[in-house]
């Protein structure tokens, strides 16, 4: 990045937009907690009726997994794809094209901007849920916590690179709602957001392991719990990085062919 200050200013601007509509964002976040609470009750019932049903997971570990998944899921929502769709549809993307900045970096900056707000709200909500349900497991080793932070940061970058690639469809289709929903459906199942991947039957687990999505939830959550051994952790975090940067590059290629498809109305 040749001019980091430009992008920092963009990130700040997009955070400020969130603050203007903070009531709306907060209500949205609180709304998403119902899903987590329903999950907690469901898993609690399963655990109480058959403690062995969680496999190698203890109940506090399972709760921690759900909370970590919730917090990671709260960063970068459908809003980024929707925004991209709107910009292309309404022709605002023409302004972006005229600016002397890198398009992908601009998008990354404005997607990253709201993260401090998203994270602090999600952690607060997550902590309240965790306390209501009797606490969660914490990393037993400070090294796990450090690795978790690295893995979580990579997870956010990976999520951006996937959203960026998907949002390129905005140049060919007008409605992003369907594309966004499809992306979230696939991501929810294969990232481990709905259920830890180890609970899957072999064929589904094999499929998940060759897709990039597991790096979004499963890898950081398992790193937090410290249930993977050293080499596995290193390999999983490494593959997160490879996917994240690989897809960033792929997104740049997509963008190159996408701008050729641009038609600006009223020009």
């Amino acid at each position: 990045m040749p001019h980091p200050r430009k992008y920092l200013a963009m990130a700040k601007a997009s955070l400020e937009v969130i603050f203007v509509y903070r009531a709306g964002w907060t209500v949205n976040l609180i709304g998403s907690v119902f899903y987590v609470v329903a999950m907690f009750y469901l898993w609690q019932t399963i655990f109480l009726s058959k403690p062995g049903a969680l496999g190698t997971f203890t109940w506090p570990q399972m709760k921690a997994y759900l909370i970590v998944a919730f917090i990671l899921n709260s960063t970068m929502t459908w809003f980024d794809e929707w925004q991209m769709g709107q910009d292309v549809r309404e022709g605002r993307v023409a302004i972006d094209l005229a600016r002397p900045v890198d398009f992908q970096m601009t998008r990354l900056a404005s997607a990253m901007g709201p993260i401090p707000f998203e994270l602090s709200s999600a952690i607060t909500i997550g902590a309240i849920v965790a306390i209501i349900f009797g606490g969660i497991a914490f990393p037993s080793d400070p090294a796990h916590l450090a690795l978790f932070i690295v893995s979580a940061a990579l997870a956010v970058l990976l999520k951006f690179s996937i959203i960026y690639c998907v949002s390129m469809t905005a140049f060919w289709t007008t409605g992003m709602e369907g594309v966004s929903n499809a992306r979230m459906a696939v991501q929810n199942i294969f990232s481990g957001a709905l259920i830890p991947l180890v609970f899957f039957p072999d064929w589904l687990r094999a499929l998940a392991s060759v897709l990039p999505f597991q790096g979004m939830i499963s890898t950081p959550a398992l790193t937090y719990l410290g249930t993977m051994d050293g080499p596995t952790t290193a390999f999983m975090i490494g593959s997160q990085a490879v996917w994240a940067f690989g897809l960033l590059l792929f997104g740049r290629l997509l963008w190159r062919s996408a701008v050729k498809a641009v038609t600006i109305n009223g020009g």
Partner: protein
Amino acid sequence: MAARLRHARWLVYIYFRCLGQQMKAILAYEADFVILMISAGLVQITGFLFIWTIFQRIPDINGWTFWQVVMMMSLIFITEGVGSLFFEGTWRVSRLVYNGNFDMYLVRPVSPIVQVLAGAVGFNGLGNIVTGGALLAISLSNAQVQWTPGRALMLVILVVSAATIRVAINLGTAASVFWIRTPWSLVPFFVHQLGEFGKYPITIYSLAVQAMVVVVIPFAFVSFFPVAYLFNMEAWSTIGLLTPLVAVYCLFMAVWIFRFGLRRYESTGH
């Protein structure tokens, strides 16, 4: 009485004419239409996979079997689909009010509520109805239900009532924009999220959550109680019979709240 009936028939006619125009508008974007349908199907398939994976580990959840839980989920999806396909307009109210375009509805000689309901078409609803319907059919064929003509008729009544409850909730919460002005459907979306609790048997929740989904926002009558009735689940099945009454009550309340809000409406630019 005859005049009232004629008026009601005329409103239904107007509703379908408006909806028809919206359909044409959507079908102009063919790719969007296909993508929306497929995405709705994908969401349900992942939901099904989730429940299936859980039931690989345990035989039942609090005595509720796999197919019963699938049926609860399918009812949530089907009713959501009906809401999007035929009554998506409720989700556009906040934007209309925010832009000042809602005035348009008020100057036309048709009930604003009918115009709101016919205000948009969400084709993802068709995907939801088709896949949800398939899941419902599969779960019914796999579960032991003692079918009688009465029970079959009741199935139809229950599905219609469940859809009515969902639409009424959407309409009633959409009216919140007359008090809380936001460009997005803030309150409707918030309440919509409560539907998550409807996907599983309510016996797994604490009393407070149960009270919320039974009494405050009756999502339990969309999925749980109808399933309890069809499968004759002892104590719960009798309450399932109340579903049509709850639907009528919800619809009545939603229309009342919306009209009450309309009286407060001052248009924008004051």
